[in-house]
């Protein structure tokens, strides 16, 4: 690959896309993106384009999977065949199976699972375009979709990766940095509880570097958390205002 010769960080300390080391990519969040789903959200983070939809609580299928004391949370992370450079087979890969599991485990602590025994909640994540850090963006969107569905939650889950690129600790790695960098640490956080619900790493970091990388990622999570809250307000404040106007019209009649 000729990309290797490319410098990932220039003399001014800026990254390939002109970002500073501790800067997020532009994030766009939209709550309510699929009318059929009980809750849904859409995220764009850099070139990532990801949809999350929630169905449930609904009847468990197959029935024997039902849990007597809580709801069964199911999660499917899936990448569209056209989401990456080389076409990806639509069949679930081992990577997708693992990511589905870790995404589910990152969301479980946030939900009051015990409120809906013998039911299940489906979380579906479709990556339409991938640009590095899809699992984090997927969690951010899935948490919003869950909140949108009205499932009682302890907190939102916000996720962001940090890593090491050419001896610099950077926030929110994009595809090239992820592939060429020397470490990638995705983190998911429930900010109100200071609870880390997802943590993975690959690459090489000393213990000290690891601590500062995690702290930078946590900082990114908090920035994303603020945007999540804003996105929820945008939907529900506008709904409330519409309602107000309708009421006014009715009163006038």
């Amino acid at each position, binding site marked *: 690959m000729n990309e290797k010769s490319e410098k990932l960080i220039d003399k001014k300390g800026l990254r390939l896309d002109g970002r500073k080391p501790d800067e997020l990519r532009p994030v766009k969040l939209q709550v309510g993106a699929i009318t059929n789903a009980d809750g849904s959200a859409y995220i764009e983070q850099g070139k990532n384009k990801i949809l999350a939809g929630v169905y449930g609580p609904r009847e468990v299928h197959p029935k024997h999977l039902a849990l007597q004391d809580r709801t069964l949370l199911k999660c499917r992370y899936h990448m569209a065949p056209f989401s990456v450079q080389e076409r990806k087979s639509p069949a679930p890969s081992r990577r997708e199976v*693992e990511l589905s599991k*870790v995404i589910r485990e990152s969301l479980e602590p946030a939900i009051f699972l015990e409120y809906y025994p013998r039911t299940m909640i489906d979380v579906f994540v479709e990556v339409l375009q991938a640009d590095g850090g899809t699992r984090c963006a997927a969690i951010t969107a899935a948490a919003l979709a869950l909140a949108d569905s009205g499932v009682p939650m302890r907190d939102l889950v916000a996720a962001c990766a940090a890593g090491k690129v050419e001896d610099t600790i950077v926030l929110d790695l994009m595809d090239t940095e992820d592939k060429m960098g020397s470490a990638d640490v995705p983190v998911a956080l429930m900010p109100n509880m200071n609870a*880390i619900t997802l*943590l993975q790493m*690959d690459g090489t970091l*000393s213990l000290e570097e690891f601590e500062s990388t*995690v702290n930078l990622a946590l900082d990114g999570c908090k920035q994303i958390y603020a945007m999540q809250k804003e996105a929820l307000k945008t939907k529900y404040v506008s709904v409330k205002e519409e309602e107000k106007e309708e009421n006014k019209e009715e009163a006038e009649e």
Partner: protein
Amino acid sequence: MAAVITRVKQKQISQLVAKGNRLDDRELTDYREMKIEQGIIERAEGSARVILGKTEVVVGVKIETGEPFPDTPNEGVLTVNAELVPLASPGFEPGPPDENSIELARIVDRGIRESKVIDTAKLVIEPAKKVFVVFIDVYVLNHDGNLIDASALAAMAALLNTKMANYEIEDGEIKIKPGYEPLPTKKHPITITCAKIGEKLVVDPSLEEEQVMDARISFAIDDEENICAIQKGGSGYFEPKEIFEASKIAKQKADEIRKKLNW
């Protein structure tokens, strides 16, 4: 990995751990008795058995020739697969690998891949065309908790035990010559798993402890005491300070095990 544990026992374990004790009298940072045997399967190019308390894992390494990945034409290929065989636990079922066995395989894979254990550049026969493919098959024979550490250790021990046939190329065909060479290995990562039970971290959780734990976190630590892979698992969470505490415990335990094994 369903298996039944009574509420009484759950409570007993949580209460003991809260006081710094464990059901089997271990300290919170103690491993169970560990036994490693290498070269137990003659047909495999490399093999090892790890016994960790009552957990038993066998790893076999097979080496074949194949094509390299298009984006890494000058590197051999490494693949890790894990089988949770039904005889190992009442909770394991026959059938295609489920998410638990896929996760286990991928954690073992990441530990070996990210720390660059195998010198993959030395596995190339003909760039972009023919390379050696190293198959690591993790076979869980008895599940009593902490499959991650046992599997990672067994995989590493099996790789250190792996022999490659001598060969020469004649008219594009591989000809096997007598004698063997060891697989070119560079590093020796050791994976350490901590489980969070209540407010405490315990190392090397047993199956019963895994059924009580809130969450677990595994660190692969290489020879230079760097972290090269991490995986958090389980439906609970960690506070940041617990993560950093776990990373320090992992470094210390990896160091102890490394000294004991002379890796």
